[in-house]
């Protein structure tokens, strides 16, 4: 495997990890108003992601930074080409990020309600828009002959990208519910509600993902270039999603979480396979000849060698200490013992 291919897949990996990790903390934030009935329960739900969300969010910064260094043309075209979408994602992430710290700094219900809204919207909006970004990545943007992207805001919302957004939103909600099953005490009412939510949003997510895959095949013909092996990934995504019902009904929470996680992994990998098999990183909707190709968008070999050393040393290290972080905060949370000194 040459370095360009390696880095293409490492960028796929950072996006995949980002969606896997931030997927569940978005999900918890979205589900909180639906699940929590008391202040203590709200805090318990925030407590399940409190020590993790920040580390999870860095994966998207990593994705951007690694794209910048290894595929600068791709980075520039994608981020400027979907400018309005990224502005909205940024505004949402700004408000959501501070809501964690600011919500409980002032003892006023209106203040708390305001930040609860920010954290809810700040999670719904990017969850949806990341799906739009991924769908547009497969579908392509109006890339012209000089690698610049034309077209306005509304061009970004096609039926396909809309369904893509819906699919990620529902999938993240399901993933968040499954995460809660691992983090909440089993004898709490909150746990029971999370379980019911997982079944409901799991069903809806399945429908959305199926719609997305069907549209991908039938109306958009986007997976036409898939050979035999890449077929496995969308298929696997569908199978893992279906298996979540089975896991939940047998009360196999860990399996359910693993499966919703794998659904996200397979779905994201599918997007990148759809690019890779065509040899492009950003297809052009104007003229296929304008599409940004893998090799032309990549950095020079020297930079890639350098980045391979850097990534080879630091990525395993980061994954290692993040796993340790999850291990330290592994104990389950119960709303009624939500002491502030216990960290939530």
């Amino acid at each position: 495997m040459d370095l360009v291919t390696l880095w293409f897949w490492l960028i796929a990996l950072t996006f995949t990890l980002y969606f896997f990790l931030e997927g569940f903390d978005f999900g918890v934030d979205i589900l909180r108003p639906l699940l929590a009935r008391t202040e203590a329960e709200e805090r318990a739900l925030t407590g399940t992601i409190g020590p993790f969300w920040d580390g999870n969010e860095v994966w998207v910064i990593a994705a951007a930074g690694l794209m910048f260094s290894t595929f600068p043309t791709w980075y520039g075209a994608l981020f400027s080409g979907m400018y309005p979408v990224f502005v909205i994602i940024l505004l949402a992430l700004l408000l959501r990020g501070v809501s964690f710290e600011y919500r409980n700094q002032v003892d006023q219900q209106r203040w708390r309600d305001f930040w609860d809204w920010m954290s809810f919207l700040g999670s719904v909006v990017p969850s949806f828009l990341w799906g739009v970004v991924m769908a547009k990545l497969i579908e392509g943007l109006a890339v012209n002959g000089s690698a610049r992207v034309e077209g306005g805001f509304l061009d970004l919302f096609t039926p396909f990208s809309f369904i893509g957004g819906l699919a990620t939103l529902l999938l993240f909600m399901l993933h968040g519910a499954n995460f809660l099953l691992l983090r909440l005490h089993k004898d709490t009412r909150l746990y029971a509600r999370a379980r019911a939510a997982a079944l409901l949003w799991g069903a809806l997510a399945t429908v959305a993902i199926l719609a997305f895959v069907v549209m991908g095949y039938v109306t958009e013909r986007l997976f036409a270039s898939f050979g035999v092996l890449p077929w496995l990934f969308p298929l696997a995504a569908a199978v893992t999603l279906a298996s979540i019902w089975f896991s939940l009904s047998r009360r196999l929470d860990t399996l359910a979480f693993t499966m919703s996680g794998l659904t996200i992994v397979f779905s994201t990998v599918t997007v990148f396979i759809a690019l890779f098999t065509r040899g492009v990183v950003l297809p052009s909707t104007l003229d296929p000849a304008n599409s940004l190709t893998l090799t032309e968008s990549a950095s020079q070999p020297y930079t890639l060698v350098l980045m391979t050393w850097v990534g080879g040393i630091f990525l395993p290290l980061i994954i290692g200490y993040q796993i340790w972080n999850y291990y330290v905060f592994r104990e389950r949370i119960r709303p009624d013992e939500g002491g502030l000194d216990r960290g939530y």
Partner: protein
Amino acid sequence: MDMDVVGLSRFQFASTSIFHFFFVSLTVGLAFLIAVMETIAYLRQDRRAVYENMTNFFGHLFLINFAVGVVTGIVQEFQFGMNWSEYSRFVGNIFGVPLALEVLMAFFLESTFIGLWWFGKDRLRPWMRLGSIWLVAIGTQISAFWIVLANGWMHHPVGYEVVNGQALLTSFTAVVFNYKAWLYFAHVQGSAWTVAGFFVLAISAYHLLRGRDVEVYSRSLRIALVFAAVGTVFSATSGHREAQVARYDQPMKFAAMEAQWETSASPAPWSLVANIDQENRRNTFSIEIPYLGSLLAYNSLTGRYEGMNQLNEEYRARYGPGDYVPPVAWVYWSFRIMVGIGSLLLLAAFTGLFLWWRKRAALNETRWYLRALLLLLPLPWIANFTGWMVTEMGRQPFMVYGLLTVREGVSANTAGEVLAGLVGLWVVYLALIGLDIYLLTVTARAGVHAKPEAQILAAPAPSYAAEGPAGFQGYDRRE
């Protein structure tokens, strides 16, 4: 500045960077200060309670500020691609590497270990918590290093060759050991220590003036004083050297800092105030101090430097037709404000050291000094802002010095898109900066023991050692 896409994108980038640095300069400095406090708490068994109170108190302030630094950092990372896609393509091979290194070496470290440090109070051994805050502190310094290295490269590109409209990396070592970047790093580092030092000084002074928790705040005052002294000396010396270096590697910036239109006499005077007429390329009025110009530029009583009119001709010959004079008044006045504030802060820090040296208790009891510290609080931020104005305005119209102008680097966005995004970002930035200042003020005023409602309900809340754990009993808000 005409408000086309270039103007708007520049304004957007400047806004994000300035807002971002407002928060991070405090984060970078305070992280180190808190790590030192926590180390003393760990080592000094006899005074552990005092230092734990101190760490928790300032840690709480640190956390309020940290969050905003993190989220504005995401904008920072995305906006190169969003607003400056042509720039990104041009420099990505080189510029992307320090940026990626910043994420991999620093952002993950900070974001993961800040949670372990704060939430891990009852889960980690004391040495692990201490290690966590040190990793956060080191992470912030690494982060500052790589981003300033990237910025330094834009001012003084090294280790590259331009092939087919892209800057290619020829030597990463040259990029890492870029003298310009190291000078900038020293300066940024010094100013971050100054910001944090005066932040802790002012809060400690506020409580000392009211005679509260003297055993905590007299100690935090002393720790911060050392930081402030080191920080101001560092900023002043590195800043002095930076200006001297700019005289030969960015002569236009240097001339703009001094509003020197025509090549100076030798010995060169130094302009204290001037009325700048950019259109007619002259100063209508200027008060000058003889010899000081040469002294600052060369550490000598002789020596001349080139004026902007002469330099503009040289630049034209080298880079093609165009106007290479930056907005002089901005650069000139920002530089004077920065230097003025820096000198004042240096003086303040050493006055404090002098009081301390003369009589140990004098520091807590010299009320005029404590009051002065309160007044000085906003100054380090103003100096930071003006400092960035000098260095970034001074390189206009270049984005990468001598290689790429801002006009060449901008994305193919429409002005409407950029304006809409800019409005949205400004609304959020203003809200965040207002909230940050408000929450910091409320929390700082409340002090260690008096826990106002704001702190009682603060989550993640510190358990103040002196009071024991504050158990929160869940209540039903619908009752």
